[in-house]
């Protein structure tokens, strides 16, 4: 099987090169046959990569420890779901998996556009296949995943225990999907720049791809946070680790793009800016893989220095040079057809929201690469840790939250004082009341209260929008309230789905503020039978248990939880020892409620004396981050869902402007 796998990779590499050459040759010589051959090559590359993935999975599942990758990332006692997850648990496998997703996306794009965008598609093919050739080149010549060892070890050295967690089985695929699908809008942007077809054709074609990419990046980041919270055992979910930042930066620029693109569609402005954002988002995904794989920046979950760094850096420089070169070349054709009228307008709010988002991305980038820069400039490595990011990104985040409330409600072009009063009086009052309410509930922290008040303000603006729309339909079309509400959303899913996403973001802000500013932390060592107080909880360490199987040995402390003398729960924080990797890990016990999470870590355990050290956190409102995440996912689904009414309307509205007609992607 592995021979078949490597053969498939070599074949894929050749076919990918052919796809680039054929589609470019075809378009230069106007030979449809050649571009068609390029498209067929794309499908063939996908098939080859699929075979390679199946071959590696086969090697993993059949425990073929003669294959170096299998021996390094699995063992005979590794549970099956993690054996499959080992496909992306290591360097080589994750590159293969990445290539697979890239080819999946590329194939889908070509199927979607079989009869559309004939001018753009050859260049889209070429761009996507250049990316594929880069990754296939690494897989064929630099880090072959099917490499065999000179001998067959009895046993593999197992997957890193930290990765043996169910979140870890879904987090990387989701993030990769997000990363990789960002290449589709990028490829269309490049094609638009090359062909000079700079109307918003390419934007409409890739709207759902951009949303999909954003969707998976959001989910990937959330799952990563969830994983860190449950597995790493330090009581938090986000540590501003370089790898986390690497996933956050493209998300920020993609968010900016999704907003500014509306301005281009409505007002024909910000064309250059949108192109820059698409290019940056793609470049940041490559930068992300560069950081994780090169070892230039030390991080908790980086792959080791693998010698891949220079390749990624070269590719990154190539991408940036070509894209910005083309952008510069087309600059004269990208003039705005309108200009901004007033600072008090939706355009302005969107523009500032974009600046803040890009500012956030830039600050995150700067903080992440600062150690390298300082070493170059001053010869000494200076790191900035979480305090830097909290200090810089915190206030910017608050500003962004404020704009989230303003943007969707303020009038286009120019808002009158009267409309401002009508739209914002109620939300402002709600915001203030929310602040007072939280203060009364005992959340007395200045920064936190600002965020809670803003959250109330934003929620009120969104709910008011829903109410206004529903009432209008009710009055005009005599519909019942649920009917009017349902139709309101389904007739304009893009707008109202967007509002739902905003609600999710607001809930996440509440969760972040609650768990950052009002957290209680305590660590102490107790004997069996002793009890101690953390916040409103009394914890009683009543028992300890030891269990052992072939894979894991574990020690569990039984902790009874009392509030006001009432026993409400029993928690089982655990210390595990993974035998193959010779590594202890911490299994956190969490009692989540809407009000707060009780988070108990068994810090250390002394078997003879049964003396246990506990680290206990009370994280107020933290569950709202995950709830907000779910709401965000729901909202994005609403905006992505196929909408025949919208498509018809769009097609009708666009026909006079672009004679090419129907180009909206599915």
């Amino acid at each position, binding site marked *: 099987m592995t021979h078949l796998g490597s053969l498939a990779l070599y074949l894929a590499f050749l076919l990918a090169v052919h796809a680039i050459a054929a589609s470019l040759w075809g378009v230069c010589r106007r030979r449809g046959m050649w571009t068609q051959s390029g498209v067929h090559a794309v499908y063939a590359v996908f098939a080859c990569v699929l075979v390679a993935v199946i071959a590696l999975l086969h090697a993993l599942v059949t425990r073929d420890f003669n294959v170096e990758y299998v021996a390094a990332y699995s063992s005979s006692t590794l549970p099956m779901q993690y054996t499959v997850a080992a496909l992306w648990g290591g360097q080589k496998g994750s590159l293969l998996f990445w290539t697979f997703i890239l080819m999946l996306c590329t194939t889908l794009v070509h199927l979607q556009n079989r009869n559309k965008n004939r001018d753009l598609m050859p260049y889209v093919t070429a761009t996507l296949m250049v990316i594929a050739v880069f990754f296939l080149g690494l897989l064929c010549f630099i880090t072959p995943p099917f490499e065999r060892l000179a001998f067959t070890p009895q046993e593999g050295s197992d997957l890193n225990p930290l990765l043996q967690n169910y979140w870890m089985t879904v987090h990387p695929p989701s993030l990769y999907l997000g990363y990789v699908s960002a290449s589709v809008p990028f490829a269309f942007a490049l094609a638009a720049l090359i062909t000079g077809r700079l109307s918003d054709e390419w934007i409409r074609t890739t709207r759902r791809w951009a949303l999909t990419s954003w969707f998976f990046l959001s989910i990937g980041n959330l799952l990563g946070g969830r994983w860190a919270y449950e597995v790493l055992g330090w009581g938090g979910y986000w540590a501003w680790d370089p790898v986390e930042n690497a996933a956050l930066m493209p998300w920020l620029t993609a968010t900016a793009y999704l907003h500014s693109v509306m301005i281009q569609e409505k007002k024909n402005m910000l064309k250059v800016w949108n192109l820059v954002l698409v290019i940056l988002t793609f470049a940041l995904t490559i930068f992300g893989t560069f950081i994780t794989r090169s070892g230039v920046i030390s991080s908790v979950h980086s792959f080791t220095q693998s010698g891949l760094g220079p390749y990624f850096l070269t590719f990154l420089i190539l991408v940036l040079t070509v894209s910005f070169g083309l952008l510069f070349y087309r600059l004269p054709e990208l003039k705005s057809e309108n200009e901004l009228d007033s600072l008090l307008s939706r355009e302005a709010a969107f523009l500032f929201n974009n600046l803040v988002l890009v500012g956030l991305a830039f600050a995150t980038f700067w903080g992440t690469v600062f150690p390298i820069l300082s070493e170059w400039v001053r010869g000494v*490595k200076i790191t900035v840790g979480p305090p830097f990011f909290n200090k810089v990104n915190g206030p910017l985040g608050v500003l962004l939250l404020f704009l989230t409330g303003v943007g969707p409600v303020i009038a286009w072009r120019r808002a009158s004082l009267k409309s401002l009063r009508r739209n914002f009086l109620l939300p402002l009052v709600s915001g203030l009341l929310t602040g007072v309410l939280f203060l009364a509930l005992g959340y007395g922290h200045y920064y936190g209260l600002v965020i809670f008040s803003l959250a109330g303000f934003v929620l009120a603006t969104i709910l008011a929008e829903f109410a206004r729309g529903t009432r209008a339909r009710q009055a005009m079309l005599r519909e019942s309230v649920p009917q009017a509400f349902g139709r309101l959303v389904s007739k304009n899913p893009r707008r109202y789905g967007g509002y739902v996403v905003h609600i999710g973001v607001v809930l996440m802000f509440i969760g972040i503020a609650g768990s950052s500013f009002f957290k209680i932390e305590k660590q102490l060592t107790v004997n069996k039978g002793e009890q101690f107080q953390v916040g409103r909880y009394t914890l009683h360490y009543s028992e300890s248990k030891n269990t052992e199987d072939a894979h894991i040995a574990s020690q569990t402390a039984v902790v009874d939880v009392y509030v006001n003398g009432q026993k409400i729960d029993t928690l089982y924080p655990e210390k595990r020892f993974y035998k193959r990797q010779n590594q*202890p890990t911490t299994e956190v016990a969490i009692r989540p409620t809407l009000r707060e999470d009780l988070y108990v870590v068994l810090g250390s355990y002394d078997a003879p004396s049964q003396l246990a*050290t506990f680290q206990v956190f009370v994280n107020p409102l933290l569950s709202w981050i995950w709830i907000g995440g779910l709401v965000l996912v729901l909202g994005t689904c609403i905006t992505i869902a196929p909408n025949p009414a919208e498509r018809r309307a769009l097609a009708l509205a666009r026909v006079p402007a672009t004679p090419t007609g129907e180009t909206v992607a599915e």
Partner: protein
Amino acid sequence: MKKSKFLLGGLLIVGAVSYLMYTGIRETSTYYLTIEEFLPQRETFTHASIRLAGRVQHGSVQWDPKTLRLRFVLGPLAQREDTPQAVGIPVQYHGILPDMFAAGRDVIVEGRSDGTILTATTVMTSCPSKYEAAAGD
């Protein structure tokens, strides 16, 4: 006229971002050194916020689980068996022992040194090499 208003608004945001970043860098900078780089110039970094990469020296670990107090000597990464024990800086720490902590392990210590002893706020066992190093075992 219109343009300048937006320029001003944009500049305000750019200015705010730069200001936050500037003060952020100034207030949160931590020197990141290996123990080999640190030892010859330890006076320079007295009371500065530092992050040191080194190896926990054999026989130096004192851990009291009851009080959560830890003391050990942070020695060079390329520690040979025959080098004298005195090379390194004593570290004191109060808190939970990280999972992988043991004599001979590579750790990253964050804190401030008063010239003779380093008071650590964080002790991290360094993970980066784990992914691939495990394969070579």
